[in-house]
């Protein structure tokens, strides 16, 4: 079972985990990413392309499913406006063996952080708003600051 989803709805981690649990697979590994409220961030807005973003996620999932022996794989990315603490992304992989599940999750979250077709806009408590620039290594820099809107 491969389930890939992208949309503005809140991610129900417990429900997704319950679906894997029902499979009774020997091992499930997961990763949950949440909005960090660093530097007074008040909202993170993720913009996506209705076709390309989902296609990219599906391709990543297919790559992982081909590389590791997985019994079930769930990849959900939220888009739209989110407050600090809210869940942006869930990666959940189940397998008969722990090594496969863990490796698939690590691969997927690393690739998601760089490859997936999303644009991030940060809004801060003091009114600054800016689109995040493409990563240079592991370092994010805000492209430029424009007045809040």
């Amino acid at each position, binding site marked *: 079972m491969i389930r890939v989803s992208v949309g503005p709805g809140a991610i129900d981690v417990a429900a997704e985990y319950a679906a894997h649990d029902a499979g009774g697979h020997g091992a499930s590994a997961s990763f949950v990413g949440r909005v960090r409220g660093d530097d007074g961030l008040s909202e993170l807005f993720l*913009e996506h392309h209705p076709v*390309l973003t989902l296609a990219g996620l599906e391709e990543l999932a297919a790559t992982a499913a081909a590389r590791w022996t997985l019994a079930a794989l769930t990849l959900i990315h939220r888009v739209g406006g989110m407050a600090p603490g809210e869940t*942006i992304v869930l990666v959940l992989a189940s397998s008969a063996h722990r090594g496969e599940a863990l490796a698939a999750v690590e691969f997927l979250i690393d690739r998601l952080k760089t490859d997936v077709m999303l644009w991030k*806009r940060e809004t801060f408590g003091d009114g600054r708003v800016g689109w995040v620039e493409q*990563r240079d290594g592991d370092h*994010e820099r805000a492209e430029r600051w424009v007045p809040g*809107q």
Partner: protein
Amino acid sequence: MALKISYFAWVRERMGVAEEAVAPPDDVATVGELIDWLGARDERGALAFAEPQRIRAAVDGQMVGADAPLPQGGEVALFPPVTGG
């Protein structure tokens, strides 16, 4: 040539719309030429496309380069480099 263009992220914000229908002249035949034409067309285009090398494009849901031909009656998406999940 009739085209539908969609804009994303700061390109969308600077253009002031998420999508629009355009009809560039016949000598605008590639994606790169479309970007140049939009950049010269008006003030918002000048703002959005001041650095054409920073613009990425997809035609009918496929990523393409600047020399890709424009699709007759199709869709072109223009956007900045992605910033990941």
